[in-house]
């Protein structure tokens, strides 16, 4: 009840809608950090997951990388890097990318590995090259799971990108961190609501992407 009142007051205040500290600008910054971190993590996790899943080798390495990346505390890394090399984009990107890699890597690996082996054998028997098998047989069949891994990473990055504000960058975390120090609950609750809304929008985006990209034959299963 209380919290809802704060959220409402935050959105009703016209000052929050414009200027340097306005919602549109902070939202764009937040989306920018998220896309950058997610893109970097996907550039590492997707090829590695596809390759290990296709060959069936390196499962232990995948599990090890995922466990290690999960064990590193994001907030601690942020402070450590910021203290070590100074404030900037790097202290934010390292923890975010490390956060996003395990779900993408592990899910992609599992997804490709768990594809029904008979179509894969059939494709190989018909003389399809290995790359063709991976991209035209295994990947389409594994796509729903692969997407779910990227989606889970995206949700986590959206909510964790709030830490960028702690090292004086922007994003929606600005409202939460500033609100904390200014004892301004309205800002904190409003910022949290914006992050949650952005996460919901991310879910919707991935649902739509799944409808468009996943082959109907796979979806119906």
């Amino acid at each position, binding site marked *: 009840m209380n*919290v809802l009142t704060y959220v409402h007051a935050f959105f009703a205040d016209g000052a929050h809608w414009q200027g340097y500290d306005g919602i549109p600008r902070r939202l764009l910054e937040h989306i920018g950090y998220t896309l950058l971190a997610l893109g970097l993590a996907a550039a590492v996790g997707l090829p590695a997951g596809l390759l290990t899943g296709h060959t069936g080798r390196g499962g232990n390495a995948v599990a090890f990388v995922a466990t*290690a990346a*999960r064990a590193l505390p994001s907030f*601690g890394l942020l402070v*450590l890097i910021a203290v070590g090399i100074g404030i900037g984009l790097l202290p934010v990107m390292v923890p975010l990318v490390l956060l996003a890699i395990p779900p993408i890597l592990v*899910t992609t690996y599992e997804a490709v590995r768990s594809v029904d082996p008979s179509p894969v054998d059939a494709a190989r028997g018909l003389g399809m090259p290995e790359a063709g098998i991976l991209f035209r047989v295994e990947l389409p069949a594994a796509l729903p799971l692969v997407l779910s891994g990227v989606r889970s990473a995206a*949700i986590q990055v959206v909510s964790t990108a709030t830490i960028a504000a702690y090292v004086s960058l922007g994003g929606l975390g600005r409202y*939460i961190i500033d609100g904390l120090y200014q004892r301004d609950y309205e800002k904190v609750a409003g910022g949290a609501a914006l*992050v949650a809304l952005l996460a919901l929008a991310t879910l919707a985006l991935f649902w739509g992407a799944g409808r468009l990209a996943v082959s109907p034959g796979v979806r119906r299963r």
Partner: protein
Amino acid sequence: MSGFFDIPSDLQHSYLGLIGLHLREALLPVLAGLLLALPTAQLCARLRWLYPPVLGVTTVFYAIPSLAVFVILIDYTGQTELTVMIPLALYSLVVLVPAIVDGVRSVPPETLAAATAMGFGPARRWFQVQLPIAVPAILAGLRVATASSISLVSVGALIGNQGALGNLLADAQRYDRPELALNSVLTTAVLAIVCDALLVLARNLLTPWMPRGTRASAKTARRPEPSEPEGALR
């Protein structure tokens, strides 16, 4: 790196004391989350229509950054350990409910029918058949929840010294002693890895019938480890 283990006195704990505090603040919520998740998952596995709405609500909650929840909870529970532990318990719940529901649902119907035919009532069937078979899935969820919880406790440092090892991060900045930040990150990571190893050990002890070294075998293959882990700061 002199003074690596030289903990500033404002934290009012020794190094080992901080570790104990960190483990308590991280693991009690996971335990509470598990105790809440078991009945919730049982309900969701029973009443199929209940599962999608529960999943939706928990996913939204999952997306709210922990710091925001801490700050909002200060209003109700003050700057205490409880303020840190309540959100962590809820995050654990969010990870564990789908893990348990998927694990319980993966029990083959023949197995259930056999248990019923042997005269097992619903309660006995749940505890002696469904839960044991779901152990690998539940433990996979517990691993994710534990790692995330251990990492998230540090954020409590931002609401006034409730972050256990995370308080070292604040002090590293306050006293310009970067080695304290390194200490915090390394110790937290080691704690997470040790707890993870213990959970793997527990899984192996609890599932003596599973072949070793085939963690992601056919049974869990369709839906891989509920590895949608919760992140660190969220």
